[in-house]
């Protein structure tokens, strides 16, 4: 059961942390319309995280979903490191979002075939949301990349900065192998071909050069993170930790 708990937490944390990051755009979006779009996407991610954390709580048996979100420390979070990276400017956020959305789409398509009914159901529900997110981020990437000289230069830099975090999408460790062998989890390596096809196609349309694969960051599967996660959690978890009896 500990294995399934950890596997579920990995998926949950990735949604939760990306959702929390995106929510920082709320009230700061470039336009009113985009502000709402970003908040909507953030809320979708929180919804996915909530479903997964409720499931994790059931497997765990003692902690609630809120406990899992607000009372774990940095080293107990298993989100992909790309999710905790800062929003930067709007182009940075859209590049990060596009790379993640493409991954989510492919990941949930595979997870929907899981023999674990709860994970399969959550995956099925998420596919609909994620395909809209992908449409949104893809269009922005094309608009910015194939836009003005300045916007093109900016997003080209964005993708080069974040590229080193894309290696984690396709990692497999012992737990992943075990989950895949038990027909519960996803073979992440298998996602890469399709991910490459979509990313290359959109980058071509956006007239952005694909960065070369060089050193890739790793560690989130073991709870290792960049220094950014700690600060995020300090803010996210402040209230429930300072006032443990606070109610929603």
């Amino acid at each position, binding site marked *: 059961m500990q294995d399934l708990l950890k596997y579920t937490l990995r998926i949950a944390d990735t949604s939760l942390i990306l959702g929390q990051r995106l929510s920082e755009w709320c009230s700061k979006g470039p*336009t*009113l*319309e*985009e502000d*709402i*779009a970003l908040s*909507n996407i953030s809320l979708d991610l929180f919804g996915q995280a909530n479903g997964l954390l409720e499931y994790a709580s059931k497997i765990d048996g003692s902690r609630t979903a809120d406990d899992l979100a607000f009372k774990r420390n940095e080293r107990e979070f298993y989100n992909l490191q790309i999710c905790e990276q800062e929003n930067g400017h709007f182009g940075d956020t859209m590049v990060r979002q596009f790379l993640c959305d493409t991954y989510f789409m492919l990941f949930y398509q595979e997870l929907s075939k899981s023999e674990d009914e709860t994970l399969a159901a959550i995956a099925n529900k998420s596919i609909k949301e994620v395909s809209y997110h992908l*449409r*949104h981020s893809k*269009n922005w990437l094309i*608009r910015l990349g194939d836009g003005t000289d300045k916007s093109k230069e900016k997003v080209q830099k964005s993708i080069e900065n974040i590229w080193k975090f894309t290696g984690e999408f396709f990692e497999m460790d012992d737990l992943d192998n075990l989950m895949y062998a038990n027909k519960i989890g996803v073979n992440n390596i298998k996602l890469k071909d399709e991910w490459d096809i979509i990313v290359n196609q959109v980058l071509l349309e956006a007239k952005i050069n694909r960065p070369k694969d060089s050193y890739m960051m790793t560690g989130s599967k073991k709870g290792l993170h960049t220094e950014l996660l700690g600060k995020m959690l300090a803010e996210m978890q402040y209230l429930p930790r300072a006032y443990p009896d606070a109610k929603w």
Partner: protein
Amino acid sequence: MLPKHIQKNKNNKDKMTKDKSTVWEVFIQSKNGLAHKHFGNVHAEDKEMALQNARDLYTRRNEGSCIWVVKSEHIVSSVPEDETSFFDPSNDKVYRHPTFYKMPEGAKHI
């Protein structure tokens, strides 16, 4: 009557061109088979963005099954000054209303 800003467009062209973003009117069909209704407007740079912004702004609570977006400048509107000549003449033409027929017994919702 269409929202005021559309009516203003004609006289306010300078202001519109200074504002880089285009305004689009949003029409939403709440159910298959029903007419699209005017919901409001959004700012957007292109068609796809207009559609997505409309979706994000106006269908968050399951309001629709189809969205139309139309550039506001493409809508031709009568102006308040036209009101008398456009609409008043139909006031005294009662024969245009089907009020001289006898209602069949049992007919409802007419």
